[in-house]
């Protein structure tokens, strides 16, 4: 057990050396020195709690996704049945209780209706189950029920799109190195290091940016609007800014016949040439431009409402057909609001509303202070511990100390290579790992002492010491790993950072405290051939 062939020694030193080298860039960075840019520079990332910045957890409403799906389905069914040859007349459409139901007026057309609707449903997931169940009850009433797979699939799609949109919007703000991740099935984690005022970001992400152009229902009486009663086929939407309404709380707009503003190629903040007020100028793509031209041509001299997230921005009159494929959105904006809206429109609408359910912002001073204090505490703690070890175990204590220093550097190095994040609790993990790493050496040294006291010869007691102690070291590290894995599996950001340090520390400390010290002790026994041990 105490024989170390040359290649083995070289190999151990190589591992330790590489890991320690990898820690250098991080050490340079922490002590404020410049690491030469020409060299590779793996670095330990600092968590938000150390670097300062904002952490925002956004949550989507699954019910909203389901609701939207239902509305889309209703529209598709109407279109499909109208387009059928001969047209299939339906009535009593309802989307109560999360399902769509309608009557086919002529019972003889039930089969052809089913045939027409069938292609609207598709297989969802791996099981191949369809995303809607179609039932016919009482002979002529169709009931379309979304299946769980269908809803799950829709939520997944919506979240994928949402992450993309969030990324585009944050990039547009010009913030550096944001982290944007799906978390669970309906949440998104956004972390932006260095961001001190997350207000703008939150406003931007809180905006769904669903832009619509709807026709104003001019038949609605002001009294009815005030009472919230809309004519059939219309709905009352409130003004985003009460000033636009000039006393009226909202406006009745037609449910159907409008167009969506999602087919844009560009959106920028601009100023209205006449009033000089901030506006957003948008450019449609070809298809969107054609639809917009058609809408404005058919409705000249009528007002239409520009609707954003179900609130009316403004309701200008269509003075002439707008054919050029670009338009202006006015609506009592400040320059900043207009800029924000332009970004939101450019990045596309969010498929679902996102709400901030958790937010953490850390100032930059606190983090810098923590790193500084953590480093001091670590240096003092390690220093005292080394004195204690040398006093208690003499030469063996010196080996322990060297192993300890290598261990610290190796943990840093491994963290840097894997690009792990050091968090505030991670610093505590570091300090704790240092304290606990000597445990292996304590176990070994105490055991050697005991074996020696029992009258074994020097070499035999060292051999036994390492062998007998390994069992307990192994078991102890396993239990520690169990705790660390639980922490990693269930913890959130900072706690995970702590768990990572613990896990890396467990591995490196076995290497340094057991393997390396054994190699050194063996070398010394070989060279000095001592008759007795001071231990």
């Amino acid at each position, binding site marked *: 057990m105490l024989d170390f062939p040359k290649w083995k020694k070289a190999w151990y030193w190589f591992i330790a050396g590489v890991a320690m080298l990898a820690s250098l860039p991080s050490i340079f960075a922490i002590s404020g020195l410049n690491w030469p840019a020409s060299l590779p520079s793996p670095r330990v990332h600092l968590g938000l709690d150390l670097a300062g910045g904002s952490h925002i957890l956004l949550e989507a409403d699954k019910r909203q996704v389901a609701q939207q799906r239902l509305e889309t389905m209703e529209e598709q069914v109407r279109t499909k049945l109208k387009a059928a040859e001969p047209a299939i007349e339906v009535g009593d459409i309802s989307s109560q209780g999360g399902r769509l139901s309608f009557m086919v007026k002529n019972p003889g057309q039930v089969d052809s209706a089913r045939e027409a609707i069938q292609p609207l449903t598709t297989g969802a997931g791996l099981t191949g189950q369809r995303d809607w169940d179609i039932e016919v009850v009482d002979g002529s009433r169709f009931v379309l029920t979304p299946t769980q797979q269908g809803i799950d699939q829709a939520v997944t799609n919506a979240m994928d799109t949402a992450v993309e949109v969030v990324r585009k919007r944050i990039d547009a703000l010009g913030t550096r190195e944001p982290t944007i991740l799906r978390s669970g099935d309906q949440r998104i984690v956004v972390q932006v290091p260095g961001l001190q005022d997350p207000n703008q970001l939150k406003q931007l992400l809180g905006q769904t940016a669903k832009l619509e152009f709807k026709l104003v229902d001019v038949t609605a009486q002001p009294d009815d609007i005030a009472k919230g009663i809309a004519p059939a086929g219309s709905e009352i939407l409130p003004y985003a800014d009460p000033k636009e309404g000039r006393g009226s709380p909202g406006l009745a707009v037609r449910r159907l016949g409008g167009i969506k503003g999602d087919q844009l190629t560009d959106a920028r903040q601009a100023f209205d040439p006449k009033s000089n007020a901030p506006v957003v100028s948008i450019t449609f793509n070809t298809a969107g431009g054609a639809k917009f031209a058609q809408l404005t041509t058919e409705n000249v001299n009528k007002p239409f409402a520009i609707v954003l997230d179900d609130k009316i921005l403004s309701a200008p009159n269509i003075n002439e057909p707008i054919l050029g494929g670009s338009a202006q959105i006015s609506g009592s904006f400040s320059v900043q609001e207009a800029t924000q809206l332009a970004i939101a429109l450019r990045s596309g609408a969010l498929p679902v509303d996102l709400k901030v359910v958790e937010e953490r912002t850390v100032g930059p001073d606190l983090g810098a202070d923590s790193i500084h204090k953590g480093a001091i505490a670590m240096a*003092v703690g390690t220093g005292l511990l080394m004195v204690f070890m040398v006093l208690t175990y003499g030469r063996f204590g010196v080996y322990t100390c060297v192993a300890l220093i290598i261990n610290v550097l190796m943990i840093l190095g491994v963290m840097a290579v894997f690009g792990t994040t050091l968090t505030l609790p991670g610093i505590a993990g570091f300090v704790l790992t240092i304290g606990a790493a000597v445990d292996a050496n304590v176990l070994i040294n105490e055991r050697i002492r005991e074996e020696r006291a029992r009258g074994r010869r020097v070499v035999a007691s060292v051999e036994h010491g390492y062998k007998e102690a390994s069992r307990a070291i192994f*078991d102890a590290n396993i*239990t520690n790993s169990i705790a660390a894995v639980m922490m990693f599996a269930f913890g959130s950001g900072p706690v995970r950072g702590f768990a990572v340090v613990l896990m890396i520390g467990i591995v490196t400390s076995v290497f340094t405290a057991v393997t390396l010290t054994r190699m050194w002790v063996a070398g010394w026994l070989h060279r000095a051939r001592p008759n007795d041990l001071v231990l």
Partner: protein
Amino acid sequence: MKLLKLIPDNTNIHFLKWTWPFFITNLLAMAASIVLLFTHGLNLGVDFIGGQMIRVTFERSAAAPVSELRESVGALGFGEPTIQTFGKPNEVTVRMRLPDGSEGHPELAEAMAQKIIGTIRQNHADARIDGVDSVSGKVSGELFRTGMLALGLAMLGITIYIWVRFEWQFAVGALFALVQDILLTIGMFALTQMEFDLNIVAALLTLLGYSLNDKIVVYDRIRENLKKFRKMPLPELLDLSVNETLSRTIVTSTSVLITLFALLLLGPEVIFGFTAAIALGIFIGTYSSIFMSAPFLIWLRVNSDSFVSTETSLDRQERLARERGA
């Protein structure tokens, strides 16, 4: 050179003599912790009950103007703030419940934060805002559940591991020790009203691991001695094992505590509670390793047969079946 020896060689302390006094003290301490949990309760942070927490450092004051803050923030009409210093007297956290209806309208919470920060900045020119945490009730509930789940699963996992590696009697002893360590540490948090947040759960998990370290070393020695001294009466053997590992137990705990104290006194204030929890837990763990590892093994009648034979568990079942038949 004369080396430092915290524990003299060949100690022969009869720890088992003190089993009952210590066991009763332990039970009383655990009962006290439970009572404290009910009477004082834990000072749960926003992580677990939801709400808003603003960290403020008063850079040019020796101590934070806590009562003044309480008054000025309370006067804003969002309810009574919970104001607490952490680490240094000039660093405080101001905690608020989230305003009604903020589940649906997060901007209400934002407005509250802005107003409070504005008030603090206005009244105190040296106030440095170090962070704002805002956690909705839904998320905090989940964090609490997953935290408790992690603790429970870790305890279960460790107990099963010990059961597999040693014997079930050891696992029962370990589980008792774990429950005791956690309960006493939580009791201490109820007593001191230090903030109990997510980090503290991480501290408790760490503690589980390290407290078990100690026990495993003692158990390992008991197992070894059970094999070696088959004729020795169990109480004597257990005392011997604890004595033999005593020096190691004390030296290791001292090592960990040295670094932890450096962190407590010099380290970042933000993790004071975290470090304090671990330090306290390690102290309790050490004491329970020395006094409580052995008694359970006597009560549950561990004997050397569990370890000496090399028969597999299958062989053993067959043998036991045969013996029962005979």
